[in-house]
């Protein structure tokens, strides 16, 4: 059984078909890419997986559970982690706080009465776990810095870390390379590889940057105009004629 099994997702906006029976699977611990030119439906598909949009047809099965109709936060509790194309951090808190709040959410034991008895603060165990993640991502030096002071690359890493704290089995990364230069992209890819080795987290990477997908993903799906036009091992997909024409335009 696959970790993520999206079956024939269909989404229409005012009669225009944004996604037409798109299917995709991700196995445990696998690194999968999803590419496509602008307007191909990548983000729409992503939002259907995450529950930000409700597809008209098809279903999403995650770890054996049908999650097609679950709200976002319930999917997160099942092990869906994500990052945002435009970084979404909790302004006004520190780097460590981000990990701690995610950790508390994973444990789910934040009753109000505990707060009222001043038992709502981070426990030693939570601090230790957040420390581990900080080390893994190389953010330990910034632990007590306010997030506003982080560079974009580190902010992206922090988003990854926040998702990891919830014990995400699958990380959905929404164009992580956007806004980063080549060196930063390479170092992000390197850290992600380490995360994958260390935690065994599967990754679904929605990307614009073909190079990053090539270096990172074993398997790739290609979307164009809401239809899957190719899928398979990344190297094969990249040499596929239809993919080339979708990206570069038909050479007449």
């Amino acid at each position, binding site marked *: 059984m696959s970790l993520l099994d999206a079956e024939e997702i269909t989404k229409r906006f005012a009669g225009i078909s944004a996604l037409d029976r798109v299917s995709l699977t991700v196995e445990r611990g696998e690194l999968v890419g999803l590419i496509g030119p602008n307007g191909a439906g990548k983000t729409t598909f992503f939002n259907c997986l*995450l529950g*930000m949009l409700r597809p008209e047809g098809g279903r999403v099965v995650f770890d054996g559970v049908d999650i097609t109709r679950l*709200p*976002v*936060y*319930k999917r*997160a*509790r099942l092990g*869906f*982690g*994500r990052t*945002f194309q*435009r970084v*979404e*951090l*909790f*302004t*006004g*808190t520190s780097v460590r*706080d981000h990990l*701690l*709040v*995610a950790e*508390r*959410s*994973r444990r*789910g*034991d*934040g*009753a*109000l009465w*505990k*707060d*009222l*008895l*001043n*038992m*709502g*603060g981070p426990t030693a165990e939570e601090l230790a776990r957040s420390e581990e993640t900080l080390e893994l991502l190389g953010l330990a030096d910034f632990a007590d*810095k*306010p997030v*506003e*002071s*982080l560079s974009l690359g580190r902010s992206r890493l922090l*988003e990854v870390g*926040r*998702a990891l*704290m*919830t014990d995400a089995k699958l990380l959905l990364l929404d164009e992580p390379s956007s806004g980063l230069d080549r060196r930063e992209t390479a170092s992000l890819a390197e850290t992600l590889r380490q995360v994958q080795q260390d935690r065994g987290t599967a990754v679904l990477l929605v990307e614009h940057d073909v190079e990053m997908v090539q270096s990172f993903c074993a398997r790739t799906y290609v979307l164009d105009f809401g239809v899957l036009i190719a899928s398979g091992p990344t190297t094969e997909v990249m040499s596929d004629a239809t993919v080339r024409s979708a990206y570069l335009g038909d050479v007449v």
Partner: protein
Amino acid sequence: MTDFVSYVIDGLPFGCVYALVAIGLVLTYKTAGVFNLALAVQSFLSAAVYYDLKARHDWPIVPALFVAVFVVGPVVGFILDRFLFRYLRSAPPVARLVCSLGLLVAGPEIVILWFGRTGSVNPPAITTNPDRQYHFLDYVVSQRELAIIVTTLLAVGGLMLLFRYSAIGLQMRAVVESPRMTELSGINADRVGSFAWMLSSVFAGLAGVLVAPLYVNVASQNFLFLLIAAVAAAAFGRLSSLPLTLLGGLLLGAAQGLLAAYLPSGSVLANGLRPGLPFAALFLLLLFWPGLRQRRETVDPLSGVDPPPPAPVATERSRALTIATRVFALVAIGVGSFFVFFQLDSYWLLIVTQGVVYATIFLSITVITGMGGQLSLCQATFAGVGGFTTAQLVDRYSDMPVLLTIVIGALLAAVVGGLLAIPALRLGGIYMSLATLAFAFMFNAVLVPLDWVSGGFVPLRVPRPVVGPVDFASDKAFLMLCIVVLAAVSVLVIFVRKGTTGRYLAALRASEPAAASIGINPARARVTALALSAGIAGLGGGMLVTLHGRANTVFFEPLFGLFFVVIVVTLGARSVQGAITAGLAFMLFPEFLDAVGLSASYQFIFFGLGALTFARHPEGIIEFQTRKSLTFIQGLLDRRKGPPATSAPGSPSPPGGDGAAGTRQEEPVR
């Protein structure tokens, strides 16, 4: 049947003016994203100007009407847009709502300064012979009513033609879709926005002039009532459709006419329900009207193109400075308490005690607005739930300890808050604020007059508590108790802020999608916040009735709920100090005004206008000034230690500031 129709006709003039103001609301909400509660003030102002010109200066009808509606209206609308709301476009919806709330609180008092609070009886109509009767079939309509109906139909018809056939109408429809997209096609969206504001203001002014003669005098509370009825009509129109909005206004007017005729006039409930109808209608519409369900805030499709707003300056403070400020605070509290307990007479003691009790109530706003980022406009009502419960319990079970009844009152208020939050939060954003507003007025109009709530005409008496050997009957002892309660609640609020709930709320406030993506349930966190907040307000309400020895309905009027928010937000909604300062200021500021010879109503003006700073300094004046001075002191300390080795990595520099200056200097050379 004839009766039925004539009752409907009786209600129509009211329905028409509701519709006019509602259309004004929809215009600015759709084009500028501002839900302009200040329309009540704009209506009031136009009505006052018309009264002044027509009745006091004997102007003829036409010029008076022209100046009141078509000069004053657009000018006010233009000023509001040009000098205030235009700068708030990228501000969060709550910030915009706070600004219009500030205007709603300050505005009427400003108008009254010029117009006078009394002496405006028999407002003139806009026709020469308003009492003349016209007969249509079996029905009788007065000229006054007919004028209102005809004017409304003309105004709405004209607006629809404007939208459909004029260039500015097309541009306005485009701006509704996306102001930035419109600008890209070469249209000045600011100008279109100003026009919408002016138009909206004309509609409000027209409604004000039309509605004034339906009442005995020109008084600000009539216009507040008008506003809330209009909000109900606008909600019926889903805050977007003009025809539906018109229909909503007319239906509400008709329902009011029917209710006035058919409800038996004997029962207290009927008497309360009649004026309470618009509030109840708004509340029910917000909860059950399908068009409003799951509505997201209007979002510009190009908004993602904007650079993110500049991050607040992150400061790191040295430990020594933090300790120093805490010691200073303790010393100040110690000296202050000595002064209060040993130097003040009973009058000032009462003032200070009230301030301490209000500070407790205001901490509820720290929870819901400061921590939760939501604007609740019914905190005075929650306090009322607590206060009335205390009074009722003490009245019925005289052997029940007073402190226990206060706690029960607080718990009941928390339950009410939680129940209100469940449907209201599903709506989110400004709808939650509107639902609390409707609830506050509905509670006041329908429930408060009932015997089993307020005790009817004579306020219920509440004795001071006796705990074991300690009798809190003396004012000093009771002040002590109030301080202990305030301290306890403050500590609880700080615990909650540091704990899970506070951290979840902080995450939600910063980014709801990100918070949900790590498994935080937004609705649950917010229901918890509103229930906790209502509980704190209820506790404060119980203390308040115990302090005064009776449960006066005046303490918990909905207007206070609005003012509470305004004063806390002005002084600081994020911190406990902010709430405590606000509580003391609420009591001491009128005394100060009195000492310098100003009327106490200036307090509404000062704090109402103060709330306008919320968009720029959501942390409030106290927090902002504290941070500024502490940063300054920190700077001095750092300088004495020598220059810092490296500048902070995130030290904000104006993006491209230097570069732009450089380019400008180079240009003349070329």
